[in-house]
């Protein structure tokens, strides 16, 4: 591909993943040497319908967004889902644990039935269109983003960790959160974040989605060993992985 044209689009999300691109700081200039941005509402004023690579941030929560996503997919040669909202639904899927009417009235009360408040259970991008690459995480890790962009530019399939966060957590020489009696989602969550949360004294929240074959059965038995229940585990899992069985 000769210098691909890139457009970035956002759906329901906090735009924190786009911010990670901005957070590349000086490296953005390098990034611009590899791709040409043609639409990026948060950073530039241009808008375009012609692009090779579309980067999608955010979840799909309304019928009109679904249509917009399909149009983008049709136009783009390559579609990248950026961040947990797009790759797995992320926190937006917490909503799916409730009825939609309940969700609307609890926030908007009387106004809940207004047409622009239409909302349906949150979907990740790949529940609607084919996604070519996923940049996992909430927010994404911009080094991984840079790596994936470079791979696409060189025609290489990026090698994304398939194994759990524990691998990186060990490399970071952390004490396992389970030793502190906490439930950590590290053993079932895809690595690639450098065990960011455990390395900062927290448990893994599971924002990169599950590994290919999470051992849920083990999860259950082990909880007993640590005096926890399946409910405790689910309470934690729903945060980023509501309704997500496995990748």
């Amino acid at each position, binding site marked *: 591909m000769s210098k691909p044209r890139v457009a970035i689009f956002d759906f329901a999300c906090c735009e924190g993943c786009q911010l990670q691109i901005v957070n590349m700081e000086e490296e953005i200039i390098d990034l611009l040497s590899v791709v040409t941005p043609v639409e990026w509402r948060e950073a530039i004023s241009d808008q375009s319908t012609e692009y090779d690579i579309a980067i999608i941030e955010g979840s799909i929560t309304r019928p009109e967004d679904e249509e917009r996503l399909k149009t983008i997919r049709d136009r783009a040669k390559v579609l990248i889902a950026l961040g947990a909202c797009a790759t797995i639904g992320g926190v937006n899927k917490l909503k799916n644990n409730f009825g939609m009417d309940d969700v609307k009235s609890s926030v908007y009360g009387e106004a809940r039935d207004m047409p622009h408040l239409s909302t349906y259970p949150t979907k990740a991008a790949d529940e609607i269109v084919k996604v070519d690459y996923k940049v996992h995480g909430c927010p994404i890790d911009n080094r991984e983003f840079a790596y994936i962009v470079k791979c696409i530019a*060189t*025609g*290489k*399939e990026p*090698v994304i960790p398939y194994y759990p966060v524990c691998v990186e957590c060990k490399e970071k020489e952390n004490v396992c959160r389970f030793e502190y009696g906490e439930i950590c989602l590290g053993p079932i969550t895809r690595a690639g974040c450098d065990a960011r949360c455990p390395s900062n004294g927290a448990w893994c929240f599971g924002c990169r989605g599950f590994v290919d074959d999470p051992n849920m059965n083990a999860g259950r038995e082990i909880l007993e060993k640590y005096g926890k229940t399946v409910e405790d585990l689910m309470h934690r899992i729903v945060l980023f992985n509501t309704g997500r069985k496995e990748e």
Partner: protein
Amino acid sequence: MDARTMKDIYLPEPATLLEVKPFTEMETYYRIKLDSGRPLGHKPGQFAEISLAGIGEAPISISSSPVKTDHFEMVIRNVGNLTRALRTLKDGDRVGIRGPFGTSFPVNDVMKGKDLLYICGGMGLVPMRSVIQYTLDHRDDYGEITICYGTKSPSERLFTDELENWGKRKDIAFLETVDRGDDSWKGNVGVITKLMPGISIDPHKTVALVCGPPIMYKFVLLELRKMEMSNENIYMSLERHMKCGVGKCGHCQINGLYACQDGPVFKYSEIADVKEAI
């Protein structure tokens, strides 16, 4: 040990692709020369690591006979990053080479003077071709030579010119089959083991050499047993995931054996009890 005088076992040597030729939809043929002019110096059955900077490295069998020293040949199936990138290269492009590595077929001792039975499934012909060529180059050193070759379909046959040649030769028996035929295919149809009952050999003066996809070995071995071949006289080349090729990375372990160093060519009697081998 002074680091400066030690050789870096991971450092590829520069090499040039003399010829790049697509063989089938999936496989591409490469003729390669080391830039230093040094002959690769491989033995039949060995492999080398081929590198493309930025993409990666992979173990690939050397497909040509060691008799040719000014270049060597490889045939590579497009299955992933490196192999896909290699397919886009042109004559004159550069690659990196490490090797040769691994064990080889015993052309100069065990095989000498024996009848040879080659059984190659699909890509298995690629490593086997180096030893087939070698034994044909030294035809007088060996007894009867039988080559069995099976592919999934006629379009997947490799080295078709050579196959035709083998078919015409009177001093060897060449048998072929495909799993599924097509309109143009006039030959045998069926899996490779279907060829075997028709072959009559003297199990005591025959060496069998086997290479093919993981699934093939079990069935071929059953047939060889029926022919009363002893495990001592069966050689096979095995594939495993490999990262270093020099016995460090751990990926290619077959129980306690390293496919990169103890293999890829194994005498079957040495691995008959190695549970993960077949």
